[in-house]
């Protein structure tokens, strides 16, 4: 595997094939890969929260990071009509039953917000691995469009 471009928390990156864009240890956060296999360009966004409220960091929130990622992909030659998405993450790490319901389902709310943002950009989700109760690292191959997921106990699979 080529050296990966690492995307941090509340961060995003775009790369041209051949390249791998990766992000480590998504918990309740969501990793969104969008790619255009004709223009051979793809990007990855690692969002923390569903909605931006006057915050300066556009890359932190699903509803502002996705339009930004799409814009950067277009600048790199991708065409919106050919863009496909794959998403992963949005887990519920702690079983916080009685503690804090707003925090408890934040992973799910992140996923919902990601889906809504992709829909308003008219980008179809081709694969997803979301929810459940475990963390995920994501390695996205821009060339093949394969999103490889790795869990804490070294389970590795492609979506």
């Amino acid at each position, binding site marked *: 595997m080529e050296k990966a471009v690492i995307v*941090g*928390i*509340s961060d995003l990156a775009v790369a041209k094939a051949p390249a791998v864009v990766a992000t*480590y*240890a*998504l*918990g*309740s*956060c969501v990793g969104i890969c969008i790619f255009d296999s004709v223009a051979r360009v793809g990007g990855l966004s690692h969002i*923390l*929260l569903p909605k931006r*409220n006057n*915050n300066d*960091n556009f890359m*932190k929130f699903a509803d502002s990071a996705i339009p930004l990622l799409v814009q950067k992909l277009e600048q790199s030659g991708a065409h919106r009509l050919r863009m496909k998405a794959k998403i992963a993450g949005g*887990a519920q*790490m*702690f*079983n*916080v039953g*009685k*503690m*804090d319901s707003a*925090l408890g389902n*934040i992973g799910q709310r992140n996923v919902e917000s990601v889906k809504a943002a992709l829909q308003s950009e008219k980008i179809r989700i081709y694969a997803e691995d979301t929810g459940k*109760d*475990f*963390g*995920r*690292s994501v390695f996205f191959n821009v060339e093949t469009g394969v999103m490889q997921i*790795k869990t*804490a*106990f070294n389970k590795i699979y492609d979506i």
Partner: protein
Amino acid sequence: MVEYGKFNDIQLDVLKEIGNIGSGNAASSLALMIGKTIDMAVPRVNMMHYSDLAQALGGPENLIVGIMIDVSDDLQGTMMFLLQKEFTHEVFNALLGTDSRDFSALSEMDLSVIQEIGNILSASYLNAIASLTGLKISISVPAICVDMVGAILSVPAIKYGDIGDEVLLIEGAFVGRDDKEDITTKLILILEESSLALLMGRLGVA
């Protein structure tokens, strides 16, 4: 009122002392429970980015045991214990007499042991602060997660995501047998802005 995370030296010292007293008490309770000495690192008070904290705990993909406790009443915040595998093995060994453990399949017994560790650590940590300040502090039942440290830290990162990308961590640490302080077990207290102000007021450094 100070800006979140902007404190003068005296205030920082007071917060460090809070971390010191809290983790000191937690360490003695745990030492008593497992019948072993526990060494402590000097506590730190930092504005820290979660990714740097993950780095300090062995990198974002390092497998650790995370215990999270909700702090409520006079002080509002979150307490987290991030236990390295090796440290958790030691505790299991002392309490249950078994050592080899597969963290991918923890039994009910294992989980209740971890939960009990969380109870003891948080209660002794916060009791010490409560008796020092006269504040009423309540704690929730500990929630447990064994996973990648980065994924575990996404939970407080999200909870305090509106405060900023960095959060003030009052951080204590237990040093493992191999003395590698950089990947040690951490006890972390995150307090909301109003609670930090209240705490400062009670200790006369507002």
